[in-house]
């Protein structure tokens, strides 16, 4: 049942206490809305005079037009000339009577005004910002952090507006928020304050310096796109969109520094979406739970989280470095490296293994060999990391699952950089991290803390051994390799046919309430982050959590991959939204998508094949759409035959759309994806008998980005898709 206005607005009950309305505050909201909408009107009509009504208007790389307008009233604006009537409608809802309800309407009008003002900047060619400022955040950025939002790695969004009392205070607030994993939107001078203090900023750090003034709207159009992209909320369902924001986007606004009318009107825009506003100013009037003053920075973040109802679990990691998902995307340039390990530069490996209860001392860390301070700057250090785990419910199958987490956990520390895994791992420690006191034992500290925190049900005890002497590392590496080999053998045996249970994944339902992933041994979740073993481990950790086993039982269609048990599971889990699903085809009742897929595949009838594009690929594709545009069609838990969101590694699966002809159908993908899949793709093609040169028969953007451009290439190379039965 759609949410009604009346139902939604119950959240505001009790804000005005005993009829003591903060009329001065409401007047500011009114004045601010007058200013914002009048300014938007002036800019808009000037743009119309200069560019004409048919001038195209768009934010870069989004499928949601002007998302504030798309989400709240449904108009899919593509031309300047469509805006006047929308702006006029919003202007007409600005009322003089000073009530909370009218202040929220003023806030809504201000959101529209800001969206129009900012979209016009792109029309005028002054929208783009140099780094680190972001301006509008494109759809791929929204999707990139989808998975972290849904699993609450990112516990909420903090919108920081204005200027803190000092740059140091700003840095401290942001470090605290980053430590908790918050997604941060910053606007106005707090950005300069953070740059001054060398705080890591930018898309890679989930800390977006948007710009100034009305550019704060880019936090709002980001949040509203989450509802459209993951929530499957149809455009224009205003109350649904607001309800989604209130329930699932756990945002709050911290307003730092002096306040003016436009800012207050914008605050009421946030309140209109269900987000509270906290100011650091002493103010004469407040609005209970919604617009409140809290001048003390010491517990400002805690206060804001409490107000928004964000509770954190998880232990503090006791290392001398900032720690949180914000730093996962951090790169450490060559000049900033103190020492590095692995990556072909020195011998290195990492191994997680289960041990018996008597072989482990919980929390124990051993460093064998010289510590980091005994190496010179620029040294390449041999490294062995062995994580030993005991747990009553631990299984050998989980070793690989846990071992892969080493990568994420290490990257969470500011100043540590980690890629790949096993004996291919490559690590860097920055000069800054070393200066702050990082020593090898801290690898152990952070790994122990995170393993116990994230896998409490299967990890009872952890100890970590670090080795830095080449001889020892080489000796242990042999042992590790035999372990890897054994695991790989086991994985090869893990086929869809060989096991009895699939796993559902409802992780994304926190944001995409009707979407269900069915995870099989040979089909990774579309986010690329959840494998069948992950699902299994997750179920062990929390039997009522996001992953539940689906005893698959007999299939009704072995080819397309339909199991009545799977249908029943998805029917229940999708709230009755989906009835049936086929696991091995994208043409008939395919799997749905939440929104955080790594790649999208789409049929290309002219080539009798399919094409794939990725979040990273910005250009157009042979179906005539960019990733963002395609993504706008497939998210939100809806079945869209012919299109599907997938994880990158699904391409090399033995169960890759087998009903449709499998890998032989693939006629186009970005070069970057080819390189990413590398030898695995070549091997898989060879296994299928498609020949050693199959990958070279797949077109990419260097061949062309339209059907016309790639068809001659495919024909010339003799692509096998032409020989397959017709797709449609």
């Amino acid at each position, binding site marked *: 049942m759609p949410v009604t206005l009346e139902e939604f607005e119950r959240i505001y009950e009790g804000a005005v206490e005993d009829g003591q309305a903060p009329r001065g505050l409401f007047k500011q909201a009114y004045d601010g809305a007058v200013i914002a909408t009048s300014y938007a009107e002036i800019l808009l009509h000037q743009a119309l005079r200069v560019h004409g009504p048919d001038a195209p208007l768009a934010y870069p790389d989004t499928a949601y037009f002007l998302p504030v307008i798309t989400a709240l009233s449904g108009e899919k604006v593509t031309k300047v000339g469509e805006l006047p009537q929308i702006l006029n409608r919003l202007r007409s809802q600005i009322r003089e009577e000073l009530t909370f309800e009218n202040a929220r309407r003023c806030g809504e009008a201000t959101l529209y005004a800001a969206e129009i003002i900012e979209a016009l900047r792109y029309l005028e060619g*002054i929208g783009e910002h140099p780094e680190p400022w972001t301006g509008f955040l494109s759809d791929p950025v929204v999707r990139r952090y989808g998975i972290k939002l849904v699993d609450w790695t990112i516990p909420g969004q903090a919108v920081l507006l204005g200027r803190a009392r000092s740059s140091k205070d700003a840095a401290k607030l942001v470090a605290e928020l980053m430590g908790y994993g918050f997604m941060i939107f910053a606007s106005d001078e707090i950005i300069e304050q953070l740059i001054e203090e060398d705080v890591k900023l930018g898309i890679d750090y989930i800390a977006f310096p948007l710009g100034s003034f009305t550019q704060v709207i880019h936090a709002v159009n980001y949040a509203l796109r989450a509802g459209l992209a993951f929530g499957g909320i149809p455009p224009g369902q205003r109350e649904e969109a607001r309800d989604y924001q209130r329930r699932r986007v756990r945002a709050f606004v911290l307003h730092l*520094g002096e*306040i003016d009318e436009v800012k207050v009107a914008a605050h009421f825009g946030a309140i209109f979406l269900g987000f509270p506003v906290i100011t650091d100013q002493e103010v004469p009037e407040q609005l209970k739970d919604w617009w409140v003053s809290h001048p003390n920075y010491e517990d400002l973040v805690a206060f804001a989280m409490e107000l928004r109802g964000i509770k954190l679990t998880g232990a503090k990691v006791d290392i001398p470095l900032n720690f949180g998902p914000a730093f996962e995307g951090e790169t450490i340039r060559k000049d900033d490296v103190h020492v590095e390990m692995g990556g072909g530069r020195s011998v290195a490996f990492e191994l997680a293994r289960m041990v018996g209860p008597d072989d482990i001392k919980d929390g124990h860390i051993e460093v064998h060999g010289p510590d980091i301070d005994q190496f010179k700057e620029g040294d390449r250090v041999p490294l062995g990391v062995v994580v030993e785990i005991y747990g009553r419910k631990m299984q050998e199958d989980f070793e690989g699952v846990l071992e892969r987490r080493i990568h994420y956990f290490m990257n969470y520390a500011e100043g540590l950089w980690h890629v790949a895994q096993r004996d291919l791992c490559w690590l860097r420690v920055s000069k800054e991290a070393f200066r702050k006191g990082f020593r090898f034992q801290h690898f152990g500290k952070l790994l122990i803390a995170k393993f116990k925190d994230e896998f409490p049900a299967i990890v009872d005890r952890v100890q970590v051994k670090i080795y830095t002497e080449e001889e020892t590392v080489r000796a242990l590496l042999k042992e590790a390799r035999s372990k890897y080999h054994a695991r790989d053998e086991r994985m090869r045996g893990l086929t869809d046919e060989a096991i009895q249970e699939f796993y559902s994944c409802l992780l994304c339902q926190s944001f995409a309430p009707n979407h269900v992933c069915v995870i099989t041994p040979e089909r990774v979740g579309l986010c690329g982050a959840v494998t069948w073993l992950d699902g299994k481990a997750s179920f062990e950790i929390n039997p009522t959590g996001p992953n539940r086993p689906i005893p698959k039982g007999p299939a009704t269609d072995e080819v397309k991959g339909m199991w009545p048990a799977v249908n029943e599971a998805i029917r229940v889990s999708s709230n009755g939204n989906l009835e049936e699903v086929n696991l091995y085809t994208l043409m008939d009742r395919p799997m749905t998508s939440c929104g955080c897929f790594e790649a999208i595949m789409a049929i290309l009838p002219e080539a009798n094949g399919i094409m794939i594009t990725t979040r990273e690929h910005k250009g157009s594709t042979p179906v005539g759409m960019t990733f963002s545009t395609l993504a706008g069609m497939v998210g939100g838990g809806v079945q869209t035959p012919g299109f599907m969101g997938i994880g990158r590694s699904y391409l090399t699966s033995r169960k890759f759309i087998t009903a449709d002809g499998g890998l032989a159908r693939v006629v186009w993908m970005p070069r970057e994806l080819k390189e990413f899949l590398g030898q695995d793709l070549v091997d898989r093609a060879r296994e299928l008998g498609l020949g050693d040169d199959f990958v070279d028969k797949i077109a990419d953007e260097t061949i062309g980005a339209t059907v016309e451009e790639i068809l001659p290439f495919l024909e010339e190379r003799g692509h096998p898709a032409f020989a397959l039965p017709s797709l449609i």
Partner: protein
Amino acid sequence: MSPRHRNTSLGFAATAKQPGAKPRRDADARRTQDPAACELLEEAQARGITTAFDRFIAQQPQCGFGLDGVCCRVCLQGPCRINPRKAGMEKGICGAQDYTVVARNLARAIAGGTACHSDHGRHIAKVLLHVAEGEIGEENYRVSDPEKLRRIATRIGLETEGVAVADLARRVALAALADYGRHTDETCTWLTTTITPGRQTKFKHCAIAPTAIDRSITDIITQTAMGMDADPVNIIFGGLKTALSDYTGMHLSTDLSDVLFGTPTPVLSQANLGVIDPAYVNIATHGHNPTLSSLVVDAAQELAGEARQAGAKGVNVVGICCTGNELLMRDGVYLASNVAGQELAIMTGALDAMIVDIQCIMPSVRAVAECYHTAVIATNPLVKIPGAHHVDFREETALATAKEMVRLAIRSYGKRDPAKLRVSEHKQDVVAGWSLEALFELLGRIDADHPARVLTDAILEGEIRGVALFAGCNNLKVNHDQSHLAILKGLLANDVFVVATGCSAGAAAKAGLMAPGSYEEYGGEGLKKFLARLSQAGATRHGLPAVFHLGSCVDNTRAADLWTAMARELDVDVPKVPFVASAPEAMHEKAVSIGSWVVAMGIPTHVGIMPQIEGSELVYGVGTQIAHDVYGGYFILDPNPTTAVERLLDALEYRVWKLRVHRKAADRFGAALTAGY
């Protein structure tokens, strides 16, 4: 409810709105910092002469509605007084709200100021045209600076190669006059060709780039009539468009005045009432327009013999207000007083004639003159004073008319009453004449190709903290000259490079802040070092002052040219240039229009007199805070000189900080410098 100014203090001192104190009745009419003025106010008291100082007291308390800007008189149903706290009175009879009324009154003040400046500019342009066309004889006016004429012509896109001076003068004059009445949609030439590309874009996007000066004045009067615009933002933007017309008229006025009368170069002179020498026939020229007064100077020299025959040593022309500044800048004529002291000059008993042209002429000069022998001569068809002489001044017969007036003064000299002589000893040496060209020549001693870079480098290196323009009037709501001097001294001591125009320059000159070498007394260590460096970099005829006199109030665009040059050197738009402006004693409507375009240009602008906008929180917020978000400039409204100094320094420090951080970001990310401010 919230702090009502844009807080740019990097230390973030807690501040709150400082509402303008309503003027109170003050028993002491000797409210001045000027020792000469103080003596003469005592004289006035002794003789029972009423001055503006007395009348200010008599006017207290002034109307609160008027002070707040919520008194609406644009239609005959009014006056309506808006009182948001009183039921039924929140709106005028037509329903206009506080913000509409305040915005309208403000915009109309801008229109008034713009009309004044642009009329002045049109007059100069017409003189140049008539000179070029040979309608005015050489003996009256001529092109004195053909090089500047060429530079202007090149800037506005005219072909100069092989074009004779007269022809070029005609084309430039016509181009200037075209900026008054263009009927097509191109932006005014004198605006677009003198500002940064960033400002051009900004003004265009915001629809405030004027196409014709006269039209924007007409538009804003129309827009603010009864039953027209009610939208405060639209009215304010209309006001800004008018203010940019003001800029246009002012800029062309300065340009063409330089062409006709010469571009000022450093010149030594003196200032304050002590320059009125009883041994001479003393003539004060008062007002703003140099066309007449420059010929009075010529005529005075020619008729010195007649004066000697009458028993005087010769003819001593002195200046008051901005006519005084014009003559001081170009001819080194003594400056007797700024605007507040105009009546006092007569009370020296030694002033034989006061020739007035346009603007800031208090009708009271005639009444004071009644008690003395002084002949008050009005010369402009728009400026007549009952009981005063009126001479219909025309450019074609300018010199002859000037001579006629000097002779009148010589006759008047004979009627002096020795008993009424109250000559002042107070005067200060002044080195004036700092046109932008002169300033650049000075700065160019260190870097001839990039004179503005000498300033920006010194700022980035921390030797000086920025540049400040002091402008504006005297306003008897505060102690005469006190705010000017307190803020000037405060900024100098804190290493700010200061330029000044108009009556603010007058205050500085009278107080010795423009005396040769005065920077050594008033400058902070950094400023002293900087100016000593400039001083030693080349031969200086006169020692450098602490405050550089840029010209009359119509010459404020010289300062705009300076910040534009600095913006170019820094490769940023104006809102990032460490430059502030202050009008400590703003009074005239012209100050309102100047302040408005200075803000639109992107400069933090202090005003030491509360403008009549406190009746609308919206207008107040737009002016003091939100203007920054849109234009980069904003008003700092603060009558307290001590906190004003702090805020101006904060604004400079903040810009230097931002520049530094933006450069750091560009460096760290290998990206372009952000255009954000």
